[in-house]
């Protein structure tokens, strides 16, 4: 009896091993088929198509505001839809809401955990969500009364089994999308704290996510430590497309303003543009002199400029169509950890490990005003541009 049982178990195991090997070969052949299908449509490069487009020339970006007040590394920031307020979070557990025009702090909350790696502003401007090493995402409603203790009204929404790396409200205040170090993303209902949908597919920590820009859009993209960027359908929880061309962890992903493409920044010191309808990578933004990883990326309003915050304390601005760098911004004294363009595209804000946030915009140079300048000011501007161009060509 025992001999018969063990024999049937052995045959079962053999069958499982055979089908496992069969599935492995099938998956390998499907992967090569996928690569072939993608390569068939790769008839031209993006910068070749954009050859006839006018070049941008060199840009100058200037820091307009410096927001000082955090006691430790700034890890994340987000703009409010009113294009004026900013929420930022830092390593010491503080989440501060600033008025970027006046640099005043409007609200400050101390989280019970350190390393608040994610923060987001609600679309209505009435609440902020943040989370980090506490594995939770908490929503704080912002009240007009400045003396009120915000921490008392805190609402715990998401629960993960590892750190929270990114969070974002969907089109309303009612739902939050989170990504975590446990390799999953999840969609939560804010009111009840219930899990509406979970997204499994990453093989390692998920570090970033971004929602598709359209009003009716229900897809989002996430990037992780497994070097993959996945595009997900929010309703079904399915991964629709997957891109794996980066050579290291993907730190940041951002949709192109039209929603047809997205950019990603990674520890391999490159930013890459992936087109969703062509289903492949269409551009790489890199230079041999850039060896430090990208921590965050964002597009300008028209999508022509791609801003990248790097770990070598600089911000590089790339021409998306031509693939060349058009500007480099210095100023931070430690690595740039987060970068977001304002909702109306007039400025961009960067947060850094040097405890500050900087709001910058482009420095337009009008010829008429040069003529009316006094000689000393004109000379200092000439010297400024001389050193600036020296840095660009270095």
């Amino acid at each position, binding site marked *: 009896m025992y001999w018969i049982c063990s024999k049937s178990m052995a045959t079962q195991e053999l069958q499982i091993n055979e089908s496992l090997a069969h599935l492995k070969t099938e998956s390998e052949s499907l*992967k090569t088929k996928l690569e072939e299908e993608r390569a068939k449509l790769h008839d031209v490069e993006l910068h070749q198509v954009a050859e006839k487009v006018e070049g941008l020339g060199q840009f100058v970006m200037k820091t307009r505001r410096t927001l000082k007040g955090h006691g430790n590394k700034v890890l994340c920031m987000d703009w409010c839809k009113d294009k004026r307020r900013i929420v930022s979070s830092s390593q010491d557990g503080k989440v501060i809401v600033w008025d970027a025009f006046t640099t005043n702090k409007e609200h400050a909350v101390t989280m019970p955990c350190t390393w608040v790696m994610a923060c987001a502003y609600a679309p209505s401007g009435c609440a902020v969500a943040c989370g980090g090493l506490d594995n939770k995402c908490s929503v704080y409603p912002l009240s007009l009364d400045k003396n009120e203790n915000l921490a008392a009204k805190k609402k715990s929404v998401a629960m993960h089994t590892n750190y929270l790396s990114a969070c974002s409200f969907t089109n309303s205040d009612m739902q939050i999308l989170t990504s975590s170090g446990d390799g999953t993303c999840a969609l939560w209902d804010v009111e009840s704290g219930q899990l509406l949908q979970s997204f499994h597919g990453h093989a390692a920590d998920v570090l970033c996510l971004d929602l598709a820009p359209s009003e009716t859009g229900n897809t989002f993209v996430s990037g992780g430590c497994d070097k993959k960027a996945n595009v997900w359908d929010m309703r079904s929880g399915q991964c629709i497309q997957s891109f794996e061309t980066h050579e290291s962890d993907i730190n940041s992903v951002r949709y*192109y303003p039209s929603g047809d493409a997205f950019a990603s920044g990674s520890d391999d010191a490159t930013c890459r543009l992936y087109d969703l309808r*062509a289903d492949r990578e269409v551009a790489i933004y890199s230079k041999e002199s850039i060896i430090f990883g990208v921590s965050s990326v964002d597009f300008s309003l028209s999508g022509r400029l791609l801003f990248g915050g790097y770990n070598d304390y600089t911000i590089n601005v790339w021409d998306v169509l031509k693939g060349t760098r058009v500007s480099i911004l210095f100023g931070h004294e430690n690595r740039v950890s987060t970068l977001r363009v304002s909702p109306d595209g007039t400025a961009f804000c960067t947060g850094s490990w040097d405890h500050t946030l900087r709001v910058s915009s482009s420095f337009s*140079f009008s010829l008429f005003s040069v003529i009316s300048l006094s000689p000393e000011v004109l000379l200092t501007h000439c010297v400024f541009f001389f050193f600036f161009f020296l840095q660009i060509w270095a």
Partner: protein
Amino acid sequence: KIIYTHAPVHKEGRHWCKKGHCRVKTEYNIYIKRLTVTTMTSNSNLSTMRRLVEQLKLEASVERIKVSQAATELQQYCLQNAGKDALLVGVPTGSNPFREPRSCAVV
């Protein structure tokens, strides 16, 4: 590489780091993640493989367009909206909300 003399203790998300310089993505963390991934793939059972094959079939069946067409449409979007892009063309100095109020006539 960070070397640990004892295994880190996970207490509510805190983890011990060398010299108090706590980087969340420490080398150790990455090492442990990669170890978990390799053990998982070597023990992959039937259901995981089946899911992977199903996922690959789904991805292979996606409708694709040529890169030339996609690139042209990206370029078109850029050029159409270039006029509204304040970071690209700049704004008249009076209306830039972030400009510091100064008496200097530059910009």
